[in-house]
């Protein structure tokens, strides 16, 4: 079942060998780990040549403050023509959690990237309007990080 997805990865490797750092194949899903510099080119290739025209989801995850690299950003691609799904993953370290934006390719990435910035602190270069979307605009910190406590820092008071 995953041979078709591996076919796409092969085409990616043929196009440019250093686009693919690693491949994971488990539970019927294929994850491709892409280096940070090549994510926009990979996405453009997959969208234009392979038909992945819908960006289902763009989410970030925090692996924990002791892990290196700390953050990861997952791109879930979907195709309305051949109904296949592929996951791209970019690993980012804590000192420089920046990655280029893909809003030029899919307009839906706009809000997803804002949410990832808001909750995790991952910055997206070239984003037209990177500001907080879910948390209040004067909120301090990034709530979904592992070192942010569940209950927050102060009890709610309106001073």
């Amino acid at each position: 079942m995953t041979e078709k997805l591996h076919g796409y990865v092969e085409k990616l490797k043929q196009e440019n060998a250093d686009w693919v750092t690693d491949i994971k194949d488990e539970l019927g899903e294929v994850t491709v780990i892409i280096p940070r510099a090549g994510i926009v080119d990979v996405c453009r290739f997959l969208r234009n040549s392979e038909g992945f025209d819908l960006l289902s989801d763009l989410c970030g995850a925090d692996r924990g403050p002791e892990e290196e690299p700390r953050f990861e950003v997952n791109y879930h691609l979907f195709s309305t023509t051949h109904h296949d799904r592929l996951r791209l993953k970019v690993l980012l370290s804590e000192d420089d959690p920046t990655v280029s934006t893909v809003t030029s390719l899919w307009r839906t990435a706009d809000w997803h990237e804002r949410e990832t910035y808001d909750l995790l602190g991952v910055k997206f270069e070239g984003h037209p309007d990177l500001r907080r979307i879910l948390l209040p605009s004067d909120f301090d910190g990034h709530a979904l990080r592992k070192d942010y406590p569940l209950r927050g820092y102060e009890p709610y008071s309106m001073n």
Partner: protein
Amino acid sequence: MGLENTVFESLPDILTVRLDAVVNWARKSSLWPATFGLACCAIEMMNTVSARNDLSRFGAETFRASPRQADVMIVSGRVSRKMAPVLRRIYDQMPEPKWVISMGACATSGGVFDNYAIVQGVDKIVPVDIYVPGCPPRPEMLVHAIMMLQQKIMKESVKDRQDTFEPESRESKVPGTLPVTEGTALERETEIEVAQHQISRPYTIPSRHEKRRSS
């Protein structure tokens, strides 16, 4: 409102007892809620208004969108920290007499969500009259809450209800997101005003429970 108060304050207590019954009966029989549906409890509130459990037979004939025309604010749903100043503002915009029903576990005490984002109980922001537990409470429970509020209103005295002092409620600005003026020319003016007047005291309005007849 102001005329009633001046008349009642000048009359001795014995003459207002019968008036209390009539005025309270009028108030309890036409409690118009303000639409403050936030989350899942709002849908149960909509169920309470719809045909099977009909809330309008208890006097809550219409849900007014404008708080200026509403009597009771049914806070139904979880209040997040971004929404809290808005809640307080809507409460301030309601004229006296006003009551608050805190519907559901999230409004009463934070509910299932004990975390950074939810205010743990709406009574940290507004004074609450009736708490309704449940997640979400059944429509019959909300109807029972309205009935309990009606019994509570019957026990009130007319002199309890004082209008909130106008300049006070206008001055109380909350730090953080100010919904209406953010990003407009009005914000620039208010920023200059704030800088000139140095309003930096804590944001509290004495609730009506603290302002008794004697003060």
